[in-house]
Every structure is written in C-alpha cells, then in structure tokens.
C-alpha cells in the first residue's frame, strides 16, 4: 500500500516535471531517476528512449544496451504481452484507474522478476511517448502468492468457522460467512450485497450499533468489542458479541468483524445471575452466620447474619482470617476442629465459644465443610448462635439447682415433720396400746373385782352360813350319836339295822360339813395372808365341790403324794385355780371313757400338780390364747373367759408357773409348779 502511495506521489512529481517549471523540479526528478529501487523509462515508437539507473538495476540491462535497442517485448514474459498491450491501450486512452499493472519480465541473466508498471502518456521530442515507472515487486509477489495460498486456507476456515465473519462497506454486507447468516436465520445471498446491516439490529440497540460503526469508520476507534441485541429473520432475538475493526477493502474503508452468538451464554449468564441473586438472597436471608473461607481461613463470602452477629461489615472481613479480625477461639476447640477437618473434611455441630473483636463471648454450634471450588479448597462455615439458649440453659440449670436445693430442703423439712408425725403417731399408737392394755387391765380388774366382791360376799356369807349350818349339823350328828348310845344301852334286837341308818345320818352330816368347809376354804381367796396349805387337801375340797358335776361315766384317778409338803399360799386362790382346771377337764371329757388323772408330786423346790384329761383337746391356734383375758370358746353365759387368765395371774403371784399342753382329739395336760418356801 505504502509503495503504491509513494509511486503515486512520484508519478505526480513526474507529471509536474514535464508540464511545469523544469528548474524547480529537476533536482527532485534527479533524485527519483537516481533511485536504485525505481526504474524510470520513456517509450516511443515501441522502443526505450530513456531508462534510469534503477531500471538498469531491476532488469540487469545497461542503458546503452536498452535505449533505442530494446522493445518492451524483449523483456516481458510472452504470456503477459497481451495484458501489457491491454494496459497500454487503457493508459493511452487516458484511463488512470487501471490496477492490472503487474507483469513479469525476464532479466538479462534470464531470471524472472515481478514488476509493477505505472505509465503515462507524454510528449517527448514532439511526439507521443509513454513515460513510466517500474518497480520490482518480485519479493512482494512471492509474499502475495503465499498470501493467496493462506487466504485460500483462511477463507475455508472463515467460511466454515463457528464465528460469524462479515465485511461491511457502503452500508451493505460485502461478505458474510455461513455461520453469520445462520446466526440471523438468512441465506447468504439474502444478506450479501442485499440488506441494510441495520436490519439485523434490534431497535433497542440500533443507535448503539450505528454509533460504533460510525466511530470506526471515522477513525475514532479502530477496534471495538461490544454486544448488541440482534434481530433474526423471523423477528426473534439473538444476542451477539461483535469484534469489529476498520480496514481498506478494495481501496476504501470498510468494517470487518467477527461475531459470536452469545444468546445461550447470555441466557446462561442471566440464569447464573439469577442463581447468584437467589444464592445471595438465600445466604442473606439465612438467620445463621455463614461464611466461606479459603484454606488459609481468609473470608471470601459472608452473609448479613454473619456481619450482624460479629458486628463487622463484609468489606472489613474479606480476605482476612478470623484471627486477623480479632476473633478468639479456645485452643482446645480449635485443635479439635482442626483434627476433625483433617480426618473428615468436615465438622458437625461442635459447641464452641468465640470472642468477637469487642470481646463479647458468644456460644455457637459450629459446622464446616471443605469443598472443591475451581482449583482450590474452600471451607463453608455455619454458626448457630446458641448464646441465648446457653444463657437460658445456664439460668435453667441454676433454677433447677435452686429448685433441687429447695426441694431438698422441703424434703428434709417434710422428713423431719414426717419423723415427728411418725413419732407422734407411734406415741399415739403406744398410748392407744397402753390405753387398750389399761382398758383390758381395767376390764380384767373390774371383772376380778366383781369376782372378788362375789367371793368376798360368798366368803362372808359362807363363814356365817358354815356356823349356822354346822350347829344344826351338830344337833343331827350329836343326836344321832346319842341315839346310838341309847340304843346300845337298851340292847335292842335290831341294833345293826338301826346302826345302818344312824350311819346314813352321820354320812349325810359329814358330807354336808365337807361342802360347807370347802365353800369356806374356797371363799377365802381374798384373804391377804399366806398360810400353810396342803395342796392335796385343796384338790380334795375341789373334788367335793365338783361332785355334782362328776357324772357316773367319768373316772377320776387320783395319785396324790401323801408326803407332799405344805406350802405358803393363799388357800382360797389355789382353790380357785384347781377348781377351775378340774372343772375345765370335766367339761372337756364328757364321753363314755372319760378319765381325769390328778397327780401331785414334789421335788426340792416345787410342789407339782398335773391334771390330765382324755377329752377333746385344744387346737394349736386356740392353745396360745387360753391365758388371754376374756378369751373363751364357751357359749355366752357359760364362761366369762376369765378363768384361766385369773388362774395364770394367781400362779404368777405365787411365783409359780402354769402350762397347758394338748393333743387335739386326744388329751389336755395342765401342769402347775408352786414353789416351796
């Protein structure tokens, strides 16, 4: 291009040289004719009339060999002769715009050279001549032929490229590749040299595109890259990015550019933007602090909650580590977190305390997760602020402790109360027991008193009665004895018979007297005094009193130790005991073979009495109760339930013992041991 400019200028000078003031331009002309790169020549009558130094260098012929000797045909490659003639003809006819001025010449040494020729019609020595310039473009041609090959290659590439390529000149597409046409949904012929490029731009971006086009064409900007909203043939929208540059096309400015369809990219970007927006919204909506840090723990992303919780702004924390921000984590917590990260690449809900930069302690449930992003590892950190919960928990724990203490206090108070109540209850129970016992004792005492009173009355009466009965008995017995004497003195015949009846009288008197005596002894129970008593006698007395109760079938077997020592005792009371025991046996043994054995014996310390009957016996469960007051198995009115109880007390008062044994259905044995004083 530059070459052609220079040539044009040179031609201009040449023209001037020949037309105008020779002296003015002669030096300039010389400088051109002397230029070894430019060959200047003048042709007249098909012969070279002048050649410059440069011409000689390019062709290899000297000026002498050429001027008036050689014709153009002598050096031009024969196949280019026609083209040359055509060119000369055009130039001769005054057409200066011809560009087909490349020819090949054969140098003197036989080598081929590519030249460009610029010739003009001049008057030389009064005749028409052609003055011209010849430039060696052999090297350039070689390059151009390479370029041509390359262009072929690139054209293919461009034609089939996945980038739209276009060339605009004079507000029309001079070129558009297939892909470009495809992008806008047109056939190539519909676009090239046909439609206004503005038709492919959406109204929204028309002014922008026109402006950019203008800028390039006017040289305000050579290379521009921008996006616009395109309009396809079917009126649908296509987003494109265009990279355009201004260039010379066919000698005039044109805009050439490449264009890619970024609709998908745009959509993806839009989606990405939306997604990013969503992500950001969600991140900031999250009520928990969330941060993303790189592997050096430098903050990359933080959400609003993070800023609010740690009282920082996003700008403050970005690219800084928690440590740099003045956050302090307990050493054991952080080493534990590090361990977990090394092992599992994650940490789940670790309770940790953290001091923010203002020194406020906060409790968190901390979780983090390492993840790959691009080439490196990032860490997603989440914090659940449990400071409040912890405080509440602590408060609750204090409350709980207080409650526990309170409960403990109350419990111990209650326990004390309970103990007191228990004691009081026990006292009451004991008192009740005592009262019951006292009541029983009172009852017993009352019954005993009644019994004693009865006995006293009986004793008082029986003493008097004894006297009153014994006197008449004395009359009877005395009378009977007197009669016996009289009868004996009278010597009657049937004295024996009379004696029988007198004996009957005497026997009657004796028995009556015995009963009175027994009654008397028995009623002496209230006597305070202990007297010497013969237990055998007491037994006999009892049997006398019970005679009426001894029915015919009951055998009473007495085995009394006649050497039995007398003992100090309350005779009446012993009477009562033995009468009671013998009476019980009589009541128990009421069958055909009834038998009551009464034994007395003595050892060093005791007088022993055994009363054994073969009656119905006493069941085990009743046996243990027989000495209890008011315990009776007899029908109401038959027994008071006091007999054995009183007997037991009497024997105890005598420092003796009483024991009842029984084999139910077989026998009952009562043993009494009374100490000998």
């Amino acid at each position, binding site marked *: 291009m530059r070459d052609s400019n220079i040539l044009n200028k040179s031609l201009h000078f040449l023209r001037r040289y020949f037309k105008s003031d020779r002296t003015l331009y002669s030096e300039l002309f010389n400088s051109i004719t002397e230029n070894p790169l430019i060959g200047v020549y003048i042709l007249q009558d098909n012969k070279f009339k002048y050649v410059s130094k440069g011409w000689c260098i390019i062709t290899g012929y000297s000026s002498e060999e050429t001027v008036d000797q050689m014709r153009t045909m002598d050096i031009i490659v024969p196949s280019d002769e026609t083209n040359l003639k055509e060119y000369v003809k055009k130039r001769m006819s005054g057409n200066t715009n011809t560009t087909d001025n490349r020819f090949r010449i054969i140098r003197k040494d036989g080598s081929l050279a590519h030249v460009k020729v610029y010739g003009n019609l001049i008057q030389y020595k009064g005749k028409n001549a052609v003055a011209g310039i010849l430039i060696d473009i052999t090297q350039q041609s070689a390059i151009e032929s390479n370029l041509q090959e390359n262009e072929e290659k690139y054209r293919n590439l461009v034609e089939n490229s996945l980038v739209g390529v276009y060339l605009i000149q004079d507000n029309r597409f001079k070129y558009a590749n297939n892909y470009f046409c495809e992008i806008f949904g047109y056939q190539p012929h519909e676009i090239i040299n046909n439609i206004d490029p503005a038709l492919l731009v959406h109204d929204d971006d028309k002014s922008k595109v026109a402006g950019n086009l203008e800028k390039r064409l006017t040289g305000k900007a050579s290379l521009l890259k921008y996006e616009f909203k395109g309009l396809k043939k079917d009126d649908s929208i296509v987003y494109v990015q265009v990279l355009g540059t201004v260039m010379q096309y066919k000698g005039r400015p044109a805009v050439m550019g490449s264009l890619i369809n970024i609709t998908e990219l745009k959509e993806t970007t839009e989606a990405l933007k939306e997604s990013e927006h969503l992500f950001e919204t969600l991140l900031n909506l999250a009520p928990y602090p969330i941060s993303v840090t790189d592997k050096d723990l430098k903050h990359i992303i933080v959400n609003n909650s993070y800023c609010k919780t740690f009282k920082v702004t996003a700008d403050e924390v970005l690219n800084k580590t928690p440590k740099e921000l003045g956050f302090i984590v307990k050493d054991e917590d952080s080493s534990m977190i590090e361990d977990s990260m090394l092992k599992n690449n994650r940490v789940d809900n670790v309770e940790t305390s953290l001091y923010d930069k203002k020194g406020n302690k906060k409790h968190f449930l901390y979780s983090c997760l390492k993840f790959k992003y691009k080439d490196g590892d990032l860490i997603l950190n989440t914090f659940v602020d449990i400071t409040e919960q912890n405080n509440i928990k602590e408060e609750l724990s204090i409350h709980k402790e207080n409650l526990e203490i309170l409960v403990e206090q109350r419990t111990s108070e209650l326990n004390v109360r309970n103990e007191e109540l228990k004691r009081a209850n026990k006292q009451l129970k004991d008192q009740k027991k005592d009262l019951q016992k006292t009541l029983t004792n009172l009852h017993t005492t009352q019954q005993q008193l009644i019994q004693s009173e009865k006995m006293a009355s009986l004793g008082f009466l029986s*003493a008097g009665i004894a*006297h009153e009965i014994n006197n008449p008995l004395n009359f009877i017995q005395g009378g009977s004895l007197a009669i016996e004497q009289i009868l004996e003195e009278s010597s009657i015949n049937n004295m024996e018979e009379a004696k029988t009846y007198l004996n009957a009288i005497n026997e009657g008197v004796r028995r009556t007297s015995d009963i009175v005596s027994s009654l008397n002894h028995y009623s002496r129970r209230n006597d305070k005094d202990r007297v010497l008593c013969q237990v055998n006698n007491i037994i006999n007395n009892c049997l006398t009193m019970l005679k009426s109760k001894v029915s015919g079938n009951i055998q009473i077997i007495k085995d009394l130790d006649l050497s039995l020592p007398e003992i100090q005792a309350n005779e009446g009371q012993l009477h009562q005991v033995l009468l009671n025991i013998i009476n019980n046996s009589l009541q128990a043994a009421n069958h055909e073979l009834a038998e009551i054995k009464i034994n007395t014996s003595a050892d060093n310390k005791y007088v022993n009495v055994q009363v054994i009957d073969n009656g119905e016996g006493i069941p085990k469960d009743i046996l243990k109760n027989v000495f209890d007051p008011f315990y009776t198995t007899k029908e109401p009115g038959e027994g008071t339930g006091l007999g054995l109880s009183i007997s037991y007390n009497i024997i105890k008062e005598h420092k003796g013992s009483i024991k009842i044994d029984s084999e139910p259905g077989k026998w009952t044995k009562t043993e009494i041991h009374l100490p000998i004083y």
Partner: protein
Amino acid sequence: MMNKSVLYVDDEPMNLLLFSKLIGAKYEVITAISGIDALEALHKKPDIKLVFSDLKMPEMNGVEFISKAKKSFDDKLYYIISGYELNNDIKKAIETGLITDYLKKPFNLDIIFKTIEKAFT
C-alpha cells in the same frame, strides 16, 4: 373321877345337852350357857381341867371368855370348838398360846376324846 371335869361353854342349849350326853359317859361334864356362866362355874369347880368353848356367843365370845378365864385360871387347857372354819383370830389365839387347839363342829367324838385323854395323862 376327880380332876377329870370338863367345862363346855355354848350358847346353844342343844349342844350343851348333846355334849353332856356323849362325853358325860366317860368324864364329868360341866356346861355353861355363856362366858359369864362359865367363869362362875370355874370359880365353883376348881378341878375342871379342860375348857371347850364355842366361838360365837352373845355378850362375850369364846376368845374373850378364854382371855378372861385364863387370867384367873391359868392351869387349865382351853379349846375352841366351833362351826366356823379355822380363821385368823383362832390361829392367832393358838399361836399366842391362849388356846391349845381348835376343834370343829359337828363334833368329832374321836378327836374330842383323844384331846381329853391327852390332857388328863
């Protein structure tokens, strides 16, 4: 038969009659219907060796009578013979030596005779 007199005191005439009849065959029996009567009899008959007295008598009972009699007539043996069972008063009287023994009514002739014989031998 001298010095073998026995005094029997009882407020019941029938007893006096029967005692006289039953004992009188072997010994001289003097009877008195009261303590006062008996004291008189003791004054009158110094050869009375044994005195049997009833216990329950009007005006002066047996023990009272014997207490009085013993003061004047200490050389005699005194016995109570009664329809009462042996009681503490009698026991005391025996223990103090006021009376020698106690006999029971109705009369046991064997015991009475043994007692008299024992006293006279």
